């Protein structure tokens, strides 16, 4: 099992794509014409050029992407967390504030994506510099890490100290403002690449996915022959015109719209919103009187009817009246074989043969002779799918014949007429607290309208 954690340098390839996208935004933000207007910001007694406020960042994002403030704050916040923009005040808090707090763009040299992975050597040099500058006054966790590194890469320690001293010397020759800026930039980089203990590690990518094309499957002749075979089969496939398929999605969504609680609410109320579980009680698997929507749904497709335990029971009652209940029983028995335990297949197949297929069987099903012959032959060596053809035949028989007649039957029509349409519940627990009952406009109005129209007609 290969788990490359971040510490070992495993880099999730696709995070790079993500970084590139963020960098595009950053570059656009700094565009001389369309980018943000930056100005000098005062930090204590020093003036830092090319800085912007949190408010500036948010306004620019809102305008550029036509987004609301909340989203701009979120996106801007991510840019700060990933180190593309860093705060000048409170540098340890990588958060975007929607006010006059000053921020600056990180130099590309210190982008996480530029120097990946951050090396131990670089971190050691950084800590050494800080140690010298602050005369040993590092933060606790930095002291610990410093001594750990000192032990681990002891052999290059002379080099580390030498580099640290050299870099400090070079920085002393800079203007104070530039020096402060560089220190801030470097600090921001290390806050992200070596977060303090307990701090949020933005670079936590979880499991590394090997994702190596050739380690899973060798691209040999077998592989290509399979691909060729697949393409040939695919080319021979029947396809349906887009206009027909896409129309199908529109129709489906329209048909199920009133059944979609998130789109149109549900009656009497959505239990998650109102804390009233009446909706669930009214729609348990078996209820004395089902709801109107539920019974309507049985008419949408044969599958909907069969998927609902009550619907299936009603359909069985109807078939019994028509003396064709053995069809549904047979279908259920076949399902049981297909989805049941391996160990019971043989015994179940025998049962099915005895009850439904054998000549003179108590509940003999009427399938065409060709399918019957094939099935009887297959039964001699029973397997999970031996009943498939017969099951399909009976399924489509019910779907094309019995199902449409059931929908026209009195049994169904009475069920529909009796079905409940729950009243929308609008009671409030406390008079001064108003609870929203629905996530969307109330469907009760639509139903009220419909029955009004029916009354008139």
């Amino acid at each position, binding site marked *: 099992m290969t*788990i490359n954690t971040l510490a070992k340098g495993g880099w999730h390839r*696709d995070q790079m794509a*993500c970084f590139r*996208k*963020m960098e595009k935004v950053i570059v656009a933000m700094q565009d001389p014409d369309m980018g943000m207007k930056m100005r000098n910001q005062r930090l204590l007694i020093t003036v830092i050029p090319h800085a912007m406020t949190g408010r500036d960042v948010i306004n620019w994002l809102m305008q550029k*992407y036509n987004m609301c403030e*909340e*989203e701009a704050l*979120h996106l801007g916040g*991510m840019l700060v967390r990933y180190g593309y923009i860093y705060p000048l005040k409170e540098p340890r808090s990588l958060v975007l504030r929607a006010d006059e707090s000053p921020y600056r763009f990180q130099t590309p040299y210190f982008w996480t994506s530029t120097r990946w992975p951050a090396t131990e050597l670089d971190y050691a040099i950084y800590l050494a510099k800080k140690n010298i500058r602050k005369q040993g006054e590092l933060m606790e966790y930095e002291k610990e890490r410093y001594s750990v590194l000192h032990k681990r890469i002891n052999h290059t320690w002379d080099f580390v100290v030498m580099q640290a001293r050299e870099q400090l010397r070079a920085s002393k020759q800079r203007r104070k403002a530039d020096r402060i800026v560089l220190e801030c930039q470097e600090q921001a980089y290390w806050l992200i690449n070596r977060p303090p203990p307990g701090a949020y590690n933005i670079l936590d990518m*979880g*499991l590394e*996915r090997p*994702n190596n*094309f050739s380690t*899973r*499957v060798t691209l*040999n*002749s*077998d592989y*290509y022959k399979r*691909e*060729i075979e*697949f*393409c*040939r089969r*695919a*080319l021979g*496939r029947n*396809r349906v015109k*887009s*206009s027909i*398929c896409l129309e*199908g*999605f*529109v129709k*489906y*969504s329209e048909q*199920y*719209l009133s*059944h*979609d*609680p*998130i789109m149109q609410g549900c009656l009497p109320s*959505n239990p*998650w*919103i109102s804390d009233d579980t009446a909706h*669930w009680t009214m729609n348990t698997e078996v209820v004395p009187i089902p709801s109107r929507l539920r019974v309507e749904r049985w008419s949408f497709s044969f599958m909907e009817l069969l998927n609902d335990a009550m619907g299936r029971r009603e359909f069985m009652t109807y078939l019994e009246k028509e003396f064709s209940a053995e069809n549904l029983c047979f279908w259920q028995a076949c*399902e049981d074989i297909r*989805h*049941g*335990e*391996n160990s019971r297949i043989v015994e179940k197949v025998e049962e099915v043969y005895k009850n439904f297929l054998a000549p003179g069987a108590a509940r003999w099903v009427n399938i065409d002779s060709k399918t019957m012959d094939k099935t009887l032959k297959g039964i001699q060596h029973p397997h999970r*799918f031996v009943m*498939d053809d017969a099951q399909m035949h009976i*399924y489509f028989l019910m*779907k094309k014949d019995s199902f449409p007649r059931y929908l026209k039957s009195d049994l169904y029509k009475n069920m529909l007429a009796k079905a409940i349409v729950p009243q929308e519940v609008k009671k409030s627990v406390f008079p001064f607290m108003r609870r*929203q009952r629905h*996530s*969307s406009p109330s469907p009760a109005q639509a139903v009220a309208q419909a029955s009004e129209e029916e009354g008139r007609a």
Partner: protein
Amino acid sequence: MACQGLQKGETLASLKTESDGLKKKLEVERGKLNDVELHQVAEKTEVLGALSIKTRRVLKGHGAKVLCMDWCKDKRRLVSSSQVRTSTDLWTREHGVSLPCTWVMACAYAPSGCAVACGGLDNKCSVIPLSLDKDENLAAKKKSVAMHTNYVSGCTFTNSDMQMLTSSGDGTCALWDVESGQLLQSFHGHTADVLSLDLAPSETGNTFVSGGCDRKANVWDMRSGQNIQSFESHESDINCVKYYPSGDAFASASDDATCRFYDLRADREVAVYQKDSIVFGASTVDFSLSGRLLFAGYNDYTINAWDVLKGNRVSILFGHENRVSRVKLSPDGTAICSASWDNTLRIWA
């Protein structure tokens, strides 16, 4: 599988050329029946107003990143799995079970509600029967069912408690008999880790779709093990695949920051859900009950709700404080549950 070797006159290069040529031809064929775009057909549907969806519950209790969750058919209970530094918690609302395995990436409720399946870095998928007795040591009753040669990324029961489908980092999917642990069928065709699978809601119940690091989404025949259809249009790993409620299409979420919609009858991609301002990968998707809305969870901690037909984003849901690893619609469509690396689950309605 033993290598067949090259026939006379064939070279690896010539086979590759033939394969590439056929793939191009396939794309052309697919394009021929493309007489209209989805958003054009959707012009006559009404524009959706902003959704007023809010967090209604925050479920705390995991001590670490929540990686996966699933609803029980009773519409109220759910199982979730997480990664803890030393052990793994598997939660239902009543029980907490610790399994000696880190990164439980997949979990699923059995249709009967009496058991849960889970798997991950242990390369296995196990079934744990649930009991009402809180004191019972559920971990002891854990039963190994699936055995892969790499991590298990996804699992689901088929129409009963007796069969289970798994996807794995070893590049395959597999169908198992729960009682005996026997492998019933294996599905080969992906060329990298398979990250997700979903069972088709079809009448004959015979197909499922899988997506993986090879950027492909494949549709499989469960009975024969054959790869029936394949779609390759994402620019990066596919993290999640989910069927449209009618079974005629499916959606995918990818690290390329887009979600896509594939029509199975037209055999092509028919929509891409993306925005310039969305730069982080999408890790999970699910449809609302009518299939009109697509909820997608992203690595920037947000959930975006897309209008499936018109292609625009309807809403953005804030609340999580780390990556969203899974979103799932409750069985009756009344709520969406989201699991996150911020150690919590949220229920939105």
